[in-house]
């Protein structure tokens, strides 16, 4: 015989006794592997979504508001693409969907889908994806209307950018409904929710948008050669053009479709083109002097035409106002404020020179193409996008326009001009350089070569890699489920440990015998643990099968009742072999460690005592002595609990909060257990005569304090975890108008498909959209600018790679004291306007977004790219308590526009409105701003949607934790049964003395029931203290009803288990036990 065969035969012989251990190991392994497999499945599902949304796309370039040539994409083998936002409605008007992704796609695009199947879109046709078809309830052959904004080369917020609301409507027939495999889910932002998409033929969309040959995105299946891309660029990709300029000198004029040259380009060109100089031409409202007033005049700021402080005027202007050199003139002009807000300002000059109308330098080429101005026949038809007093236009002004068009009437120095008219869009409208006989094509190539696409923020992105990183998930569901199941796993292990200990207690004499026969303690222990290891390994292996079942049940839950946690992601089962190995090894090792820990007491007992059957009882008495210092433990624990609770009020991040949360509760539980231990000791010493069965039962409770404390601790721990975590359920019943609540006190909120440029708080803004003054009474709008990015809220399971950046006028929120701050508690929105020492842009985000979506806290920084492609830092300066602003990083509008001047208009809105008229206001606004695709919803609904995710997690934990507590109560049942079995002799004696079995049952249930109740009370009180910091920080109500129900269920279940276990153990002839003794 070998040790191994001894172990195997022992395992075989005690197989039935090992069933508890097998079950415990099975459960631990099943829950652990199942939890990890849930993580595998979520990741695999996210990867699948990423595969479907990107197909074969590896890389790409998104221009956004920057349009580049289709040719550039073709040169590097990419598929040119137009990505726009819009709204789509059925031609019948029966349904409308906002925030639709409008894609202008050519043949090359379809080749990149997972299937590679070409989708043919003919003239006057569009294709729609499945979600959009579903929402609109349309099919092939139906007619839809697609509304989108005509792009502008320059931000619609820029001065002289022309009028806003240049929308177009495409009436098209649906030629096909695109399936998932054929790019139905295509989108370049990481989200598990398929967008609503309408596909328009690329040439068709280019024509409709008047962007022939231009696109704002490209995608490709393989890495793009950066050198090839740079080599392929042309001036058109920078929206630049060059032409010979008439004048006294032979010059070339570089201008842009964007009116203002980007600083990143103009600075580079002025530096690299020797002898070049800048020009800034602006439309002033009037030029006035004592001699009169000339309306709407172009003024060019160019150094070679005027000295600083002086104005060179043309003869026409001199004649109009009778001006001569030395006269004073004033120019009145608009400067751009926040948004499209214009402020009129005045500047004074002295007439320094008068130039004749036939002077070669008096020509229209100084003026760039102003949309709504340059191409208009009459002055009175101008639509420059700024307020204009058309009544002031005289016939002679019309005549000037007819004769000289945009020829400047005056010139000032460039320094003076830039002082007056520089804005966030640029400080020059043109650059002049000497014409030395260069060929136009050569010069175009030379100038393009001086620039880089990154100067205007055009850079190739590796979408596949980004998608891979995003698919890792913002939430590690494997870790989350392990965490949520931890109590259940622990309960399974405790259950296994308990049964193992009982099993080896029964074999204590064997242990004693082996030691008496010369086996060392280590040999005996190794043999027993190896025997248990065989069972644990078997249980763990079987547990892997159970894990698969557990995962499938969990996935069914996540696809069903727990759908709130996966927000739209259809989960599929996936299992990685390495995950199974990790789960197997972990559960096996953890089981063995548990058994080693559980059995350590037995091996501290002398062989003689074990042989005599005294073993564990002797140790229990020693163990009880460890609690001798219970007063110290109780006092230290109470102080610790109070300290941690107080510290919890100051916690600034999840780790700290979590630490305080469990720390305070645990310390209080320790204190409670220490006090209970002290009480048991006092009772044990007590010499008072026991006069009732109840008092005898009490003696039994204190007879084995270790065992009693184990019952107490198990119940208290279970209740504590389940009750404390449930305290974080977010209640839907909060008042949405409370300013420091999650809604910020706003009644409505929403997004628009297309930017809204107008201020909806002003009369003009409201009139633009025909909003009724009475309907808008009491309505105030807080608009946000939006830089498109990944949703970093809990509604996006992907890990946000480029979190959405939004901007707000901080004062609008600060004056309302909107939203509560979690960290620092005394923070305010004015922090957004403060300047940071290291130049970072201050930002505020929702606490949940920062902690879980971004993994950041106050003081951490994010990196974004500005319009010129340069990186800038955004530093989190404060965190909001749970709010509807989840998923966004919020900065001040001023900082936003400084970095991203092209992001025109507002696309996210919070609305104050009389609560009673909220529906009416929402309906009115949505209708009047239909063309902009405005969609509003009650802010409380959005908050509830966010809360649902957290509540779902808590729900999952409750179910798993509840199962753990039930397993714990089953453990108590085992303890009860064991306890009764040990006492069968004395119980038999009591029966012999005349006690009825029912009285004995009541006594036993009373003993353990009192422990159970004490454990429940300790758990509830501990949880109450532990969640105090969280409740203190937020205004959410405690779901008392739910918690009371849960606790009552646990008590009832525990008492039933105790009764059942005691009944079973008391069954049979107790008197036989007396006779045996």
């Amino acid at each position, binding site marked *: 015989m070998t040790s191994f065969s001894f172990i195997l035969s022992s395992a075989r012989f005690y197989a039935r006794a090992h069933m508890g251990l097998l079950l415990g190991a099975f459960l631990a392994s099943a829950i652990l592997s199942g939890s990890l497999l849930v993580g595998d499945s979520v990741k695999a599902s996210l990867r699948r979504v990423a595969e479907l949304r990107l197909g074969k796309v590896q890389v790409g370039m998104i221009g956004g508001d920057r349009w580049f040539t289709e040719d550039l994409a073709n040169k590097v083998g990419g598929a040119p693409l137009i990505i726009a936002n819009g709204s789509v409605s059925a031609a019948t008007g029966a349904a409308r969907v906002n925030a639709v992704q409008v894609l202008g796609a050519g043949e090359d695009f379809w080749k990149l889908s997972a299937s590679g199947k070409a989708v043919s879109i003919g003239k006057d046709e569009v294709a729609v994806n499945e979600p959009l078809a579903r929402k609109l309830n349309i099919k092939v052959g139906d007619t839809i209307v697609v509304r989108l904004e005509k792009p502008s080369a320059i931000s619609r917020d820029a001065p002289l950018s022309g009028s806003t609301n240049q929308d177009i409507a495409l009436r098209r027939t649906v030629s096909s409904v695109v399936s998932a495999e054929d790019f139905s889910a295509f989108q370049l932002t990481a989200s598990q929710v398929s967008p609503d998409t309408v596909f328009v033929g690329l040439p068709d969309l280019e024509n409709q948008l008047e962007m022939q040959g231009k696109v704002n995105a490209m995608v490709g299946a393989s890495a793009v050669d950066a050198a090839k891309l740079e080599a392929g660029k042309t001036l058109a990709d920078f929206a630049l053009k060059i032409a010979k300029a008439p004048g006294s000198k032979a010059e070339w004029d570089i201008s842009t479709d964007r009116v203002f040259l980007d600083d990143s380009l103009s600075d580079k060109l002025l530096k690299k083109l020797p002898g070049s100089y800048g020009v800034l031409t602006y439309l002033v409202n009037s030029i006035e002097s004592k001699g009169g007033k000339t309306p709407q005049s172009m003024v060019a700021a160019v150094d070679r035409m005027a000295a600083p402080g002086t104005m060179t005027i043309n003869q026409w202007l001199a004649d109009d106002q009778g001006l001569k050199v030395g006269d004073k003139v004033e120019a009145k002009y608009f400067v751009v404020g926040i948004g499209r807000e214009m402020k009129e300002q005045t500047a004074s000059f002295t007439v320094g020179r008068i130039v004749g109308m036939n002077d070669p330098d008096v020509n229209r080429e100084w003026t760039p193409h102003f949309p709504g101005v340059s191409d208009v026949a009459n002055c009175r038809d101008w639509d420059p996008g700024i307020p204009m007093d058309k009544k002031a236009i005289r016939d002679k002004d019309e005549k000037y326009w007819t004769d000289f068009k945009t020829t400047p009437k005056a010139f000032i120095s460039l320094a003076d001009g830039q002082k007056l008219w520089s804005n966030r869009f640029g400080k020059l409208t043109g650059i002049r350089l000497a014409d030395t006989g260069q060929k136009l094509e050569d010069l175009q190539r030379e100038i393009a070569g001086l620039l880089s696409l990154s100067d205007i923020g055009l850079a190739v992105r590796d979408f596949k890699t980004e998608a891979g990183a995003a698919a890792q998930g913002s939430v590690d569901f494997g870790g989350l489920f392990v965490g949520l199941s931890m109590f259940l796993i622990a309960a399974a292990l405790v259950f296994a440990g308990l049964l193992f200990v009982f099993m080896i207690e029964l074999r204590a004499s064997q242990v004693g015998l082996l030691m008496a026969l010369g086996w060392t303690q280590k*040999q005996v222990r190794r043999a027993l643990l190896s025997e248990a290891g065989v069972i644990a390994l078997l249980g763990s292996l079987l547990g892997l099968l159970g894990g698969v079942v557990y995962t499938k049940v969990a996935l069914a839950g996540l696809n069903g009742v727990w759908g709130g946690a996966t927000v739209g992601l259809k989960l599929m089962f996936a299992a990685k072999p390495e995950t199974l190995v990790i789960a197997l090894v972990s559960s096996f090792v953890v089981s063995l460690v548990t058994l080693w820990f559980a059995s350590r007491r037995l091996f501290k007992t002398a062989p003689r005592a074990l042989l005599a059957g005294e073993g564990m009882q002797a140790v229990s008495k020693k163990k009880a002595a460890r609690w001798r210092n219970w007063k110290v433990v109780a006092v230290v624990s109470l102080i610790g609990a109070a300290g941690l609770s107080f510290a919890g009020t100051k916690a600034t991040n999840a780790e700290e909060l979590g630490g305080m949360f469990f720390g305070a509760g645990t310390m209080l539980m320790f204190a409670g257990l220490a006090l209970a231990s002290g009480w048991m000791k006092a009772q044990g010493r007590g010499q008072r005569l026991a006069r009732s069965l109840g008092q005898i039962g009490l003696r039994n409770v204190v007879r084995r304090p270790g065992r009693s404390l184990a019952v107490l601790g198990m119940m208290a721990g279970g209740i504590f975890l389940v009750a404390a975590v449930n305290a974080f359920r977010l209640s839907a019943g909060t008042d949405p108008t409370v300013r420091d609540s999650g809604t910020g006190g706003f009644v409505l909120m929403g997004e628009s498909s297309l930017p809204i440029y107008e201020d909806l708080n002003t009369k003009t803004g409201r009139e633009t959209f025909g909003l009724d003054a009475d309907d808008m009474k009491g309505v105030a709008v807080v608009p946000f600018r939006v830089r498109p990015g990944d949703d970093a809220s809990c509604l996006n399971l992907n890990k946000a790679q480029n979190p959405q950046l939004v901007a707000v006028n901080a004062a609008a929120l600060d004056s309302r004291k909107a939203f509560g701050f979690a960290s620092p508690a005394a923070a305010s929105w004015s922090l957004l306007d403060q300047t940071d020492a290291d130049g970072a842009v201050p930002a505020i985000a929702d606490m949940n977004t920062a902690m879980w979506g971004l993994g950041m806290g106050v003081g951490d920084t994010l990196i974004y790219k500005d319009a010129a492609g340069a990186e800038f830092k955004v530093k989190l300066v404060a965190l909001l308590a749970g709010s509807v602003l989840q998923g966004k990083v919020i900065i001040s509008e001023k900082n936003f526009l400084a970095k991203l001047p092209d992001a025109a208009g507002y696309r996210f809105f919070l609305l104050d409105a009389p609560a009673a008229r909220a529906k009416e206001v929402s309906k009115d606004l949505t209708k009047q701003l239909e063309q902009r695709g405005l969609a509003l919803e009650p802010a409380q609904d959005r908050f509830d949607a966010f809360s649902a995710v957290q509540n779902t997690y808590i729900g999952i934990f409750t179910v798993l934790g509840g199962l753990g507590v039930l397993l714990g109560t089953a453990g108590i049942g085992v303890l009860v049964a064991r306890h009764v079995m040990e006492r069968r002799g004395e119980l038999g004696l009591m029966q012999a003395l005349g006690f009825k079995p029912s009285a004995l049952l009541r006594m036993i249930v009373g003993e353990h029931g009192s422990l159970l109740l004490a454990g429940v009370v300790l758990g509830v009180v501990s949880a109450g203290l532990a969640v105090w910091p969280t409740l203190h920080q937020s205004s959410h109500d405690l779901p008392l009803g739910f918690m009371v129900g849960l606790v009552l269920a646990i008590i009832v279940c525990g008492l039933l288990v105790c009764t059942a276990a005691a009944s079973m153990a008391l069954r049979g002839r107790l008197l036989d036990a007396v006779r045996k003794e």
Partner: protein
Amino acid sequence: MPLIELKNITKSYTEPEQQTSVPVLRGISLSIEAGESVAIVGPSGCGKSTLLNILGSLDEPDEGDVLLEGESLKGASAQRLSELRSQKIGFIFQLHHLLPQCTVLENVLIPTLALKNGPDREARARELLKIVGLDHRSNYRPAQLSGGERQRVAVVRALINEPRLILADEPTGALDEANAAALTDLLIDLQKKTGVTLVLVTHHRAQAERMGRLLQIHEGRIAG
């Protein structure tokens, strides 16, 4: 040199409820030579089993020393005591303490597993089982044996590692008269054949008188 020697051994137990100390052995000195057979008799609670446990290193004295073949057991590590028990001492208890999961042969061989790189003793086990008349039951489980047979297996188990000393604590206590007499005969016979030292604790005067020496314990002391 005596095989085992006790020098002024005292031992007391603490009564947990009353927290008082109850003396069991009071200054016992004893010397047992190799090959001797010794019976220890005395009333219940006089300390017979405690004395035997101290002789077998299953318990340690409060005071005094135990010398096994001249080696002091005082302060010896648990590891060393295990080695001494596996190599030099065999135990027979009142209850057989056979492992139910093992066959008769396996039960006999269990002490050999304690020996590192020990010789294969299966042949010896079979031979000893033949001597005690159980060779035909070597593959039986303890549950399939009678009380007397189980105790004979326990005797063989005690002898398997060729110990110098056999300590038997009321080995016939759970047997009927006939089986008790048979087991006593077996023990005396084996002791004579193998020359092993036998120390027997018993209540039975007749059984004790068949040993070479008889020690009477009274109130924790050797009375004669």
